[in-house]
């Protein structure tokens, strides 16, 4: 049983859509929260919402953000700095979210590194792969 919570933080409707899409694959997800920053929202208001989601209880939290250097990522990093047990990964993909959400254990023992690897390995030039097999 996964012993950490997941917070997806992203621009506009992406966070909620990622969670909905992951639920399409995995069924209902427990302890997974989506927090989006609206185009008209200030970083301060977003920070309050994200902090509330991260600090819900004392369990470890994995924060998955969309863009490295984007506001969700920057705000998540500042919250994580003073909340022990918070790990922030930028560049979330549906594959990473599914992998994290279905994880049977915690965030230790290289689990975070494996998640990063899942994200990277999920980016594939499908056209080139087929061409290499003489299929196109």
């Amino acid at each position, binding site marked *: 049983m996964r012993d950490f919570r997941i917070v997806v933080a992203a621009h506009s409707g992406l966070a909620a859509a990622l969670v909905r899409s992951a639920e399409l694959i995995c069924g209902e997800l427990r302890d997974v929260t989506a927090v989006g920053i609206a185009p008209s929202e200030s970083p301060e*208001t*977003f920070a309050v919402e994200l902090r509330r989601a991260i600090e819900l209880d004392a369990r470890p939290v994995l924060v998955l953000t969309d863009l490295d*250097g984007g506001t969700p990522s920057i705000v998540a990093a500042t919250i994580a700095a003073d909340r022990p047990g918070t790990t922030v990964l930028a560049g979330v993909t549906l594959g990473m979210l599914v992998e994290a959400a279905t994880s049977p254990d915690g965030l230790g023992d290289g689990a975070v590194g494996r998640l990063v690897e899942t994200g990277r390995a999920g980016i594939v030039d499908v056209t080139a792969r087929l061409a290499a097999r003489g299929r196109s």
Partner: protein
Amino acid sequence: MTLRLVRVDDRLIHGQVVAVWLRAVGADRIVIVDDRVAADPFLVDVLTLAAPIGVPVEVLDVASAAPRVTARASAHDACFVLVKSPVTALALLRAGVPIGAVNLGGIGAGPGRRPLYRTISASDEERAALREIEALGTPVEIRIVADDRPVPFASVDRT
């Protein structure tokens, strides 16, 4: 020589947005002017890492920014100045920094603020600062992304 652009954006550096603006204004360095950010070394690190690779970032408080940015402007350094609030832009202008134009790029909704234009909100204090900037002879144009047609602040400013 004046600074080509000072941008008001409460998200400061955020992802691809800043990369597009650097290209649009032909700048190769970023100067953030904000008293609160400059006093927080962790936030300085986070913002510095958020900039595109190879683009140097300086974070300064208002007092030390005025002479520094003025020197950069006269040395023809192409720097892109980012501030969170028009109040900071006005302070730089009053301190003698030669600013060609102020770009109003983003201020999110929050306590004391009301909608100004599209996704941009502003408080009475922020509106007063924008009017004062224009009264001092520096135009304020609204452009959220570099591709937007500039909208003069005065055309959307209703009290």
